[in-house]
């Protein structure tokens, strides 16, 4: 009888115990996968904002029509610029007042809203935004240039924080998985003590005794991770079907689930953790 067959027989006899363990591991992996989904999406938004940049070129009040046309023309000829839109002071006030019914905004004089050129950069512009902003800022007709890089930097900090939080969460979850699986395996070992005693009596090596339990631990970890990830995917698809438009409007892109390689990585991590937990707990138990 191979280790797999022995593991299958053991799991079949103690299926309730194993089911409980798989469920506990699944709950832990739902938390981990959820945090990864959040981090992955925030990272995606940051990447998108960073790559498809937008620049507001605020014109000086004394800028002449000729200077503004010159800047506009030069921008349109640049390969990194996708679109240029000229916004007058009146237009800026209307746009802001349209979005905000605040009477204070509508009462402000039109001079409070500087005219601007709204520049949309192409996706290939990459890290050339800073250079372009510096060149535009040096022109006498330009008062200031807003590249919105501070938002990207803030998002980068959010992503960094999310990664750190996920790493800590992963450690906690890995610890809980090890604890759950090793407790389950110890209990399974206790329930199959006669089998283990007989195996050792007839000359089985520790490795031979340990192998089916390690297989059981690995399967528990892998199944728990798989169930947790699939459950989260279902939950995600339900939420997305209801809130996709709202997310799109808010973030500028639709939320996505974890890529397949991360999902597979979670299952592999679950299996490895389960096997390691079983191995460690059995090393103590078989040694005694």
């Amino acid at each position, binding site marked *: 009888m191979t280790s797999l067959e022995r593991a299958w027989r053991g799991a079949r006899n103690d299926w309730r115990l194993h089911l409980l363990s798989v469920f506990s591991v699944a709950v832990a992996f739902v938390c981990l996968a959820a945090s990864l989904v959040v981090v992955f999406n925030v990272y995606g938004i940051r990447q998108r904002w960073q790559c498809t940049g937008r620049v507001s070129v605020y014109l000086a009040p004394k800028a002449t029509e000729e200077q503004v046309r010159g800047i506009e023309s030069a921008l349109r000829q640049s390969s990194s610029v996708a679109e240029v839109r000229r916004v007058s002071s009146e237009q800026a006030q209307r746009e802001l007042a349209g979005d905000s019914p605040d009477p204070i905004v509508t009462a402000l004089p039109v001079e409070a809203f500087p005219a601007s050129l709204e520049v949309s950069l192409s996706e290939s512009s990459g890290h050339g935004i800073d250079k372009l902003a510096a060149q535009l800022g040096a022109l006498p007709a330009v008062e200031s240039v807003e590249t919105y890089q501070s938002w990207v930097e803030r998002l980068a900090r959010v992503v960094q924080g999310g990664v750190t939080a996920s790493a800590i969460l992963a450690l906690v979850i890995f610890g809980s998985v090890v604890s759950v699986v090793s407790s389950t395996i110890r209990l399974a070992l206790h329930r199959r003590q*006669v*089998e283990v005693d*007989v195996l050792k*009596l*007839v000359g089985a090596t520790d490795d031979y005794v340990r192998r089916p339990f390690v297989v059981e631990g690995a399967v528990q970890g892998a199944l728990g991770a798989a169930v947790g990830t699939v459950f989260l995917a279902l939950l995600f698809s339900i939420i997305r079907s209801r809130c996709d438009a709202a997310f799109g409007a808010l973030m500028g892109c639709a939320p996505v689930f974890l890529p397949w390689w991360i999902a597979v990585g979670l299952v592999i991590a679950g299996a490895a953790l389960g096997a390691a937990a079983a191995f460690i707990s059995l090393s103590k138990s078989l040694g005694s």
Partner: protein
Amino acid sequence: MQAGENSPAFRPVLRPGRRFDALAGRRPILVFEHVHKAYRADNPVLRGLNLEVARGEFLFVTGPSGAGKSTLLRMLYAAESVDSGKILFLGREVGRLTRESIPYLRRNIGVVFQDVKLVPNWSVLENVALPLEVLGVAQRTVRQRVGQALERVGLGGRGSERAGVLSGGEQQRVAIARAIVGEPAMLLADEPTGNLDPQLAVDILGLFEDIHETGVTVLFATHDRSLMEVRPRRVVVLDDGKALDVPHGLDEAAPVLNGRTQIAQRVA
């Protein structure tokens, strides 16, 4: 009886990675030299026990409860350590075996217990096949040898039955089949008839004798005097932590057992 001394099947392997120890056949199978064992310092179980067992012998080990019969057997298959002294199995000192070597020692020793130690929810076949599976024997050979072992203990054709539903006597037969299926050099029986009625006990003893006829050394621990009277064999009486050797059955040792005043022979 020194049966099976030249048996080609005698191929003891005592260390990992070795095929078998060729010198082993020329040594006494078992030697105890000044073996001490105590679970409590003030109450030693064995005090300088000396004993030598030749290959192919049948030996009763007897003595009152707590005399150390089970301890003696457990030390043989390295389930207990020796406090001092030596136990040599085929010339190798059991106490000095590494943790990795102990399974190889146990593959040469079959053990039968009073409480049978079968896995109750497994079939008879699965229980008996275990020693062969540990050895990595091919499935077809396993089935064949398990069938033969079950025939020898009178349970031919019962392989598919669940071990837990068999009677006490049948379970003990399954345990014996499991102990002999790997063709061990030595068979240890720790009160195997303790839970059986007298007739069944004699039947089980008969089984051990049949196995012994094939050349297997048998150490049969029992406190059942009637069994030793039925079959006069060499008896080792554990008394006061030492072995009193009675080579030809209990009748010869009656004075020893009654009053402890005479010692038939103290094994050097």
